[in-house]
């Protein structure tokens, strides 16, 4: 599904990604962990086409990220820490706008259905600026999946969320996984990573330091490996 070969990204004189090689199969839910400044978010932004790589090749679903970027963009839903929503618009207006950009058919029904699914039907005509962080993130989740993406790119999606919003987000990721959606999630939250992911990638100094599968939501294994690699605890 996602093939990354020798990916590098240089900004000014700093090499942020130093030859990343990565292969992700369809339906996998992958957590990308690492310390601040390791290059996790940069890797995600390159995949989201927000940043152009300095060198290397990225293929998504057989499509070249550079040449077929419009087709590639249709495949993924991007959910960063920011909401990407217009404050003065209502949830419905925000979803209609992004739905139209993605060419979603019957966009109004789809938007109404998503607002209902994230539990905000009562606030459908309220401007987003009046919402709490948790409510905004619920609409942001709906925005990211309005076009039923095949790949989800999540950048620290659990930060600042209440328990209800965390549950909704996790349920969305798991239900998308059941539909065959691939998920890449950059996070510092080991508990959530262990909860919903079946593969963990640890990034350190712009390189992949470890790549392993986890079973049985094993938080202990994730913490142990992370501490050994990043913090040098044996």
């Amino acid at each position, binding site marked *: 599904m996602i093939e990354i070969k020798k990916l590098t990204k240089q900004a000014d004189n700093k090499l942020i990604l130093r030859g990343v090689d990565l292969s992700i199969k369809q339906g996998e839910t992958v957590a990308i962990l690492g310390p601040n400044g390791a290059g996790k978010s940069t890797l995600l*932004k390159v995949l*989201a*086409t*927000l*940043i*152009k790589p300095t060198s290397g090749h990225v293929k998504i679903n057989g499509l070249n990220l550079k040449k077929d970027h*419009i*087709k590639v*963009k*249709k495949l*993924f839903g*991007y959910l*960063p820490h*920011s*909401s*990407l*929503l*217009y*404050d*003065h*618009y209502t949830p419905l207006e925000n979803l209609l*706008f*992004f739905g*139209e*950009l*993605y*060419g979603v058919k019957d966009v109004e029904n789809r938007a109404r259905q998503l607002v209902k699914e994230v539990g905000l039907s009562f606030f459908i005509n309220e401007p987003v600026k009046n919402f709490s962080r948790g409510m905004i993130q619920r609409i942001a989740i709906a*925005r990211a999946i309005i076009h039923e993406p095949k790949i989800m790119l999540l950048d620290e999606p659990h930060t600042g969320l209440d328990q209800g919003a965390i549950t909704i987000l996790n349920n969305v990721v798991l239900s998308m996984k059941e539909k065959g959606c691939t998920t890449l999630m950059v996070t510092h939250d080991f508990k959530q990573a262990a909860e919903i992911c079946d593969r963990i990638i640890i990034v350190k100094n712009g390189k992949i330091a470890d790549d392993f599968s986890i079973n049985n939501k094993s938080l202990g294994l994730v913490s142990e490996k992370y501490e050994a690699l990043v913090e040098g605890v044996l």
Partner: protein
Amino acid sequence: MFRAALTIAKKDIYSELRTKQVLGTMIIFAGLVILVLSFAFDPANNTTKAVIPGAVWIIIVFSGILGLNRSLVSEQRNDTMHGLLVAPMEASSIYLGKFMANFSMILIVEIVAVPFLFLLFDFKVNGSILYFILVLFVGSFGFIAIGTFLAALASNSKSSEMLLPLLLFPMTSPVLIGVTQATKIILTNMEKLPSAIAWLQLVAAYDVIFFVLCFLLIEYVLEV
């Protein structure tokens, strides 16, 4: 591409109708400039009429800058520009959408401000109104095309409000010189119409070249 651009333009205009922040400020600013000019220059004095063509473009340029700066800076709140960049469209669609919205707003300002200016100065058009509308259209097109691109460039800077005029005035000076000359001829002395048309052709050529350049280069400007 055009469909996405239209969706963005529609969104910007709808936002403006909802918040009434930019257009209101632009019209109020234009009104204040006209009012100050009417106090500074005696409308009864015939030499004052010579100031009118310049005054038209002063109003358009300064009120235009207010809208241009706002149109791109507003996309930084909640990183909504990232939302546009990850959507399945070319970066040039974003430019085109923003251009269409800004162009519509400056046309609205012109529709309100220019008759108000003529009324307050008791200015009677001796030339052709149709040519005058054409000059307004061609001049505003070039100003907004370059301005939208430079606003995108300046929006990444912390002092975008200062940077935009510094970049915009030198870049648009050929457009402004051309349209001011053409406006002067068309409003006051129609005998020199061929000269006005030559100025207009120069501005139109500048518009096309810069519109195409901005359209092609916007991808690099908008990169995160």
